[in-house]
């Protein structure tokens, strides 16, 4: 069936394409998370977040097209590209949520009043 058609060539290009997709998907999700205020997906807020998103997407394209020398010869077939993209998505979504969880905890800890500040607060 479908999986019998998957060979992934010599393998190196499949690894390159998976890495490219993974990085580009992570960058894309960050862009959307910022645009729609998705706290469950967000790593870095504000302009820094948009910069990180844009650099990740652009960087992944530039890296892939500069490093992979086999782009203009018959390489991965459509089904193989689709499978690698889906595997990259399946990896990227939970990774995004995991990093977002720790980033949110980090932000909460950074915003929490310090012990000294808490001691200075007047008692009710």
């Amino acid at each position: 069936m479908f999986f019998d058609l998957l060979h992934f060539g010599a393998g190196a290009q499949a690894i390159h394409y998976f890495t490219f997709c993974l990085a580009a998907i992570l960058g894309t999700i960050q862009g959307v998370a910022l645009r729609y205020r998705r706290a469950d997906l967000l790593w870095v807020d504000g302009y820094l977040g948009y910069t990180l998103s844009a650099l990740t997407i652009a960087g992944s394209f530039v890296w892939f097209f500069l490093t992979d020398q086999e782009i203009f010869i018959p390489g991965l077939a459509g089904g193989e590209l689709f499978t690698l993209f889906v595997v990259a998505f399946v990896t990227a979504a939970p990774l995004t949520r995991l990093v977002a969880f720790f980033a949110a905890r980090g932000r909460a800890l950074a915003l929490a009043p310090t012990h000294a500040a808490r001691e200075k607060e007047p008692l009710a």
Partner: protein
Amino acid sequence: MNLDLWLFHALNDFVGTVPLIDWLTRALVNDYAVPTAMSLAAVALWFAGATPEERTNNQRAVVFIALAILFCNALIKDLSYVYFRPRPFATETVKLLFYRPSVSSFPSIPIEVAFCFAAGAWYASPRLGKWLGILGALYALARVYAGVHFPSDVLAGALIGVAMVYIVVRLDFVFVPLADFAIGIARRLQYA
């Protein structure tokens, strides 16, 4: 000379005249750049939405795109058993900017996929659909310019892609419950 051949030569004979256009064509025509960019747009659509209703509508559009691509590929695979059109480089004098694909030239599968993305995105976001449509049109132009398709191949691919999305959307009584089922599973697994 028929219109299809005339248009093909009008574009392909220009290869080698302006190196920048050749370079841009190579950047567009390969198997990776445009399909990956369109897939990333689908990922963005999957997570986008200011309200739960908008998000559900966007996610349905992504499922419709996937279904339309699946049905188109099945249709074209069946079509290739009954009709095989040789590539332009097999029958014409061509300035080739790409490798020599072996599958039938008609209809263009990459363009059919690109227009499934564009039409499906249009269902949720006409603005995104318009941009993907422009990218798809440039991709189609690049495939002809690079010498791997005749204009009628890319036109047929685009029409099949758009028509298949239209059919999937019109059959909403079948595909909306199916899409909602898939979205429900994805949400339970924290993928949406």
